[in-house]
């Protein structure tokens, strides 16, 4: 299963879609952590994940940190709680996993996260149709 990851912050990621091939050509894709994947098997067909899979399944925390190191900015420490993690009784298994760059319903491209509520996450999306 593909489950998480953040696509490389290339300008193409926000302007063009279905861009798995763009990533294959981009320098970030040379990293051994990036396994090319065109469409996801995680979700039903209405969701496509353009990003390459950043970390192989079962990677150690150190490997995860390394895989995200190219993103720039400050890495969130595994011990820091962000967003919905701060909720009491947070159970990740009933929350939908979204990444920036995902396309939902074949038309809504996720641009970023606006907020989270007690039982929902709120995302900023662009309608491509």
């Amino acid at each position, binding site marked *: *299963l593909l*489950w*998480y*990851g*953040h696509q490389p*912050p290339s*300008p193409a990621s*926000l302007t063009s879609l279905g861009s798995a091939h763009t990533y294959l050509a981009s320098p970030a894709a040379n990293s051994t952590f990036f396994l090319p994947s065109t469409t996801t098997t*995680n*979700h*039903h067909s*209405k*969701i496509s994940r353009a990003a390459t899979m950043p970390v192989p399944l079962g990677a150690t925390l150190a490997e*995860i940190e390394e895989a*995200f190191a190219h*993103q720039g*900015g*400050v890495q*969130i420490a*595994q011990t*820091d709680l*962000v*967003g*919905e*993690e*701060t*909720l*009491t*009784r947070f*159970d*990740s*298994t*009933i*929350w*939908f*996993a*979204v*990444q*920036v760059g995902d396309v*939902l*319903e074949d038309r*809504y491209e*996720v*641009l*970023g*996260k*606006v*907020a*989270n509520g*007690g*039982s*929902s*996450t*709120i*995302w*900023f*999306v*662009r*309608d*491509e149709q």
Partner: protein
Amino acid sequence: VSIPLSSGATRLVAAAILTFLLIYRTEDLWVLKICIKYSSGDAREQRAFELIGGRATTTTHPGLGCLQRPSRQFTIVSSRSGHHQCFLLSPSACHVEEAWCVLGDLPLALAKEVLENTLRALDFLHVECRLVHTDLKLDNIMLGFADNNVLTGYVEELKKNPERCKVHQGRDGDKYPVIKAKPFVLTKDSFAFPQLNDLGESVEIPVINMGYAGPRLCSPKAFRTPETILARPFNEKIDVWMMGCLTLQMLTGRIPIIPHGPNQPWTDAFTLAQHHALLGPPPPAFLAQSVNVREYWAEDGTWTHPEHDVPKIELEDLLEVVEDKKTREDALDFVRCCLQWLPQDRLSAADLVKHRFLAGEPKAALWRRLEEWEKRAVPQSTDTPTYTTFEIPQEYEADNTSTSDFAHED
């Protein structure tokens, strides 16, 4: 392109294309609310939007525009986490509490606008849709954008500085990506028209009347009404009670009903003691209604509960911070119309809109903004679910964990 660029007609065309592109660029930006694994709350929200959608095409009620409703709803399915209900909404700038933080102070005009719009929306819900909101609080009232520059700036910012992802290690080896939310950068001119939001806790009046909605379900702990605490039948007037509490909160900067001490829960006894302090002793009709009132009051309406005394505070004391004398008196009367022991003594939302506390503000600007807002409003969705036979979910009675709680974040 052989036409000279200096020609007036070309410029006009270019301007038209530019305008079109600008509009297009902001029109395709939306906010998507993805709920957790399908639960009874989603069923209620979906049902509420079905009812509203059924009225929306025929009604001329002004409350419809004061209600934030999704342009589309759909379900996405994940093999990892099941079915998720999604609502596509036009972006709002922030909720009232955030605006309060940005402004440093809540201007009276904004507070009145929030009250008026919320009351209009409530009247539409109560009368036309037969729905009770039950979860009124400041973070469920959204303020729209006054200008779309914030949105385009936000998209630029997302491109330049995307938030970094973190992996949450859940139970059973579950891995879940979490990123920090990036809030909009707002100034005091960014927000406009208030709209009521979040029908996730709404209950249908027929369902209440059939006795399928337990009073334990209702309202944030701090805004609970006497009848829900005493497990009596309730109706849409609990929304009116909560409007009274919201008015006090916005005017005084303090939630009117507080727990007994820091980090303490809201207990039934202490909440009722504060109701007694603010409203005076309950009327005989209230005391005659159920057996469990005897735990708290003697037959003549004196407070007898051993654990707490009635605190020495009155509505006038709470509102003392309002400087202007006329505003204070009007606000006091307005709050008195909302906070009454018996539901039938509270004014309806439609009557409260006409109250003199909300009158007298220049409405022209407000209505102009409403029109602008509605122009931008979404076209009627083509895939609005049609009416289905509604089965009352068992969870209405059993599920009282989803009730909002001021003490916790969820």
